[in-house]
């Protein structure tokens, strides 16, 4: 798990940026989020894995855009209307393309539940746990796992 998660262990509350992918509510810890972008000009990267949408220039830094839908094994998103969440991982910036970004929620860490055993394996791989909100469920996206291509290649 990330350092942030451990740090957050001291407080009972952790804040999450929520977003929707295919109607499903997801969240990433707000501390991992650098930016939220609307559509941005993306340069395609030939021969790259399909879920890598391309790269973009964010204030002079090159950001690799990941289509989270594809990474989760879903249909690719409609590039026109989607948004993205920029996060830093091992010194590199990544832009996670999602359907739409919602509000920031403060959630009690103690309420985090483990993934249901029957969850689809792709989802289970990238989910750090589930929160039961009043009206729906929130999947905590494990960004490090999502971006860990080395591990995936070995697997």
């Amino acid at each position, binding site marked *: 798990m990330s350092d942030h998660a451990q740090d957050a262990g001291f407080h009972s509350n952790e804040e999450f940026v929520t977003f929707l992918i295919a109607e499903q509510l997801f969240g990433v810890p707000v501390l991992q989020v650098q930016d939220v972008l609307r559509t941005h*000009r993306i*340069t*395609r*990267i*030939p*021969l*790259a*894995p399909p879920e*890598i949408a*391309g*790269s*973009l*220039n964010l204030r*002079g830094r*090159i950001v*690799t855009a990941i289509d989270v839908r594809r990474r989760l094994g879903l249909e690719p998103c409609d590039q026109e209307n989607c948004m993205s969440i920029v996060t830093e991982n*091992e010194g*590199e910036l*990544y832009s996670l393309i999602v359907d739409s970004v919602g509000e920031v929620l403060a959630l009690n860490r103690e309420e985090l539940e483990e993934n249901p055993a029957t969850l689809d394996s792709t989802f289970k791989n990238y989910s750090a746990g589930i929160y039961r909100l009043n009206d729906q469920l929130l999947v905590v996206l494990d960004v490090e796992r999502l*971006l860990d*291509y*080395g591990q995936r290649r070995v697997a």
Partner: protein
Amino acid sequence: MDDLLREFVTETAESLSELDGQIVKLEQNPNDQDLLSNIFRLVHTIKGTCGFLGLPRLESVAHAGENVLGKVRDGELEVTPQAVTLILQCLDRIRELLDALEETEAEPEGNDQELIDQLNAFAEGGGATEMPSAEAPVEMASAEMSAIAAEQGETMATSAEGVIEEAPEVTMDELELAFLNAKGPEELAAEAAAMEAASGVVTGSTPPVDQPLETQVPETQVPETKPESQSEPQVAAAPAKPKPAASAGGDNKKVKKDSVANQSIRVNVDVLEDLMTMASELVLTRNQLLQILRDQKESEFAAPLQRLNYVVSELQEGVMATRMQPIGNAWAKLPRIIRDLSHELGKSIELVMQGAETELDRQVLELIKDPLTHMVRNSADHGLEMPADRVAAGKDEGGTITLAAYHEGGHIIIQISDDGRGLNIDAIKAKSVANGLATEADFASLSEQQIQQFIFKPGFSTATEVTAVSGRGVGMDVVRTNIEKIGGTIELSSQQGQGTQVTIKIPLTLAIVSALIVEAGAERFAIPQLSVVELVRASSRTEHTVERINGTPVLRLRNRLLPLVNLAELMELKSPNGADTPLEGSGEEEHHALSGEDGDDKELFVVVAQIGAYSMGIIVDRVFDTEEIVVKPVAPILRNLQLFSGNTILGDGSVVMILDPNGIAAATGEINMANDLTNKKDEAANQMVSHGKVSMLVFRAVDETPKAVPLELIARLEEIDLSTVENSNGSYVVQYRGQLMPLICMDPEKQLGDSGLQSVLVFSDQDRSMGLVVEEVIDIVEDHLAVEIGSACEGYLGTAVVDGKATDIVDTGYFLNQAFSDWFDRVGASSGEPGGRTRLLLVDDSHFFRNMLRPLLSVAGYDVVTAESADQALRLCNAGESFDIIVSDIEMPDTNGFEFAQQIKNQRRWANTPIVALSAFTSPADLQKGRDVGFDDYVAKNDREALLAALRETLGEQRGAA
């Protein structure tokens, strides 16, 4: 860490590496007083600073060393190898302590009494009288220790460098202060007095502590050395002569150096790196602004932007300059390494360094430091012979290793050469075979040069035993990988018995490169300018047209065929509006280049790229201008894409990928040096082995039976506009490349039309060309050329199965003869005479003749193996091949046919194999000479019938005899 302590560590580490070099120099010039006082001063400074900072252990070691040096300086001791070894040991100990100090910020526990005693004993003992008997054990002990010291020195040096890197320049008031405050041994009292006197003279009053002291240092040096040079007459009792001139020059230099030191400041490298990054960003932003300006005709921003442009360029240059360091910095520890090595190995080695002041980017410098050290070690360990062996080989006892660096274009060239034994080809072969890198048979077809390259292969290490010196598990392959990583190349040449030379070519800087921006498949890419040779615009209306051979695009460029790769296809990019990208999808275009369809006016650009010795054309849709780009590494998840070397942000703010021409070459099958070798080897092997596959051009002409010609015979495929064809003397000719080219129809009855395009196969030899008119080019097939049915029909060699179909193999010679009756003096059609498969070796340097004779001889029932030179043939011989008969050309470069025949007859294996000479010269004198050297027969090159007859005859005699 305490700032003061950190600076102490940094400065001392620098002093130590300087000392290493100086002491080695001193050993060579024991009476160089100037050098000696400089060494003394450096050690003294270290000692003084230690005292100031409260580091007793360091201080006592340095003090003991200084003691010995002091006596040497005063002429009480001589500079002997053991004195030097002892002092070096002392420095190593200091380094060791320093290292611990850097880690723990405190002196480590331990006792240096033994070393100090040794030093003191030497200072005492050596000082009174020379005691050779006492020296012997010291030497032995020191030899042992120097081995250990060398090991430690190595690690010390690396860690010390770690500190140096943090701060490249030296000036430090505290240390100078400390230096002045330090209590020296007795003799320093005088020096201090002199110094005070000097400062008194210079300033005329007691100066405030800080600033004037700096200026005093150079001043005090002068009086300090003077009494010493006076003491030289006493030292002159020692064998070597004093060098007053050198020492005087040294004085000036030193004064100058000190004042230069005062003009520089210490800057943390991180600060420089940040500055560089920011300058790079500024360059990008400037590019962006200029881009905007370009779109606006009149703008009040134009003038200020121009100025900004200018300033940014200057700034960029300035910042780059701060990153530049003389390559000598990477060489600094080499003299010491060589000295230790020569003692350890018992060799006498001289290290010559040329062009140490050549500057290159710090980052590059760091990356080449280790490979350089490794190669110098290699030269010393494996390259140079033992003194006895050298003398036996007629060389000087001492070997020389030369390091040279210089600028060439945008590159730095570094050469490491030695005058040692050179690479041992047999050892390389044996090793490669033992390590499973190649087989004996593979080597048969390789030149020495190619075999030498095997040392760059992973899993290869030349030393039979891994020595302490160079066998560290890193081989030349690692060296090569490291150098290629920074966009450099490495070449090796070696002559047995003469020495080895390694040439490294590396870019000046990695940070900012000039790149050509191109577009393919609606995406833009950057190609580093360094690998771009030229741009060619190709369309059906220009002289350059992209043609296809079996779907593979090629471009004719100045008499050669350039392999092409379509960038959009390579990148698997589909342009958004479908078939916009030309040459995409093959079905239609496959024919178009030859079918005469004139519909394709699409313009293409071909970027001709040079990768090592290999050039290649990259087809792109559009070419924009060149831009200075800042290379940024790609995200880790994209690192496995070998086609890209990085990415960057262009002036308009968009991100583009930077193409790696090496990667493209590799991806298209043409591979870098080592692999290329394998490739060539395969090719060569294919040519070697009889019935190896031959590429053939299959076409349709006369009737429906496919016709085939070995592809290598064909110079070009042409489309001739029939309206330009003229009829001269009943034969067709066309003006082609400024000459008249005869057009020959395979069907003599055939009449050419008046208009339209006609496919023609062009055959060329030297300055003559002939066009063979064909209906349609079908394909290029790689297959075994085994003519199964001989043909009695003129113009055909026979019929073979090519690509599963019965195909007529065209006798090119017949048609060449029709075009130029003197092309060969041909006597009727060849009638195949299938006999027993007789193994025949054909040696001819002309590619053309080899390819022409091969099918002919093959048809005549011989099992043909070709060699392009006498050397290659002899290698086959050595590799254990045997033949029934050899046919050799006479006029060949390097070894001509006569020499070749002599060599064959003089050695055992092939001495009895009959040889038939082929020559254009058939004067009686030539014939006689041929017979004298051992040719069994001598045939005119153009007389193919005579050749076949001679072969039959010679073999008949042979068989009769046997």
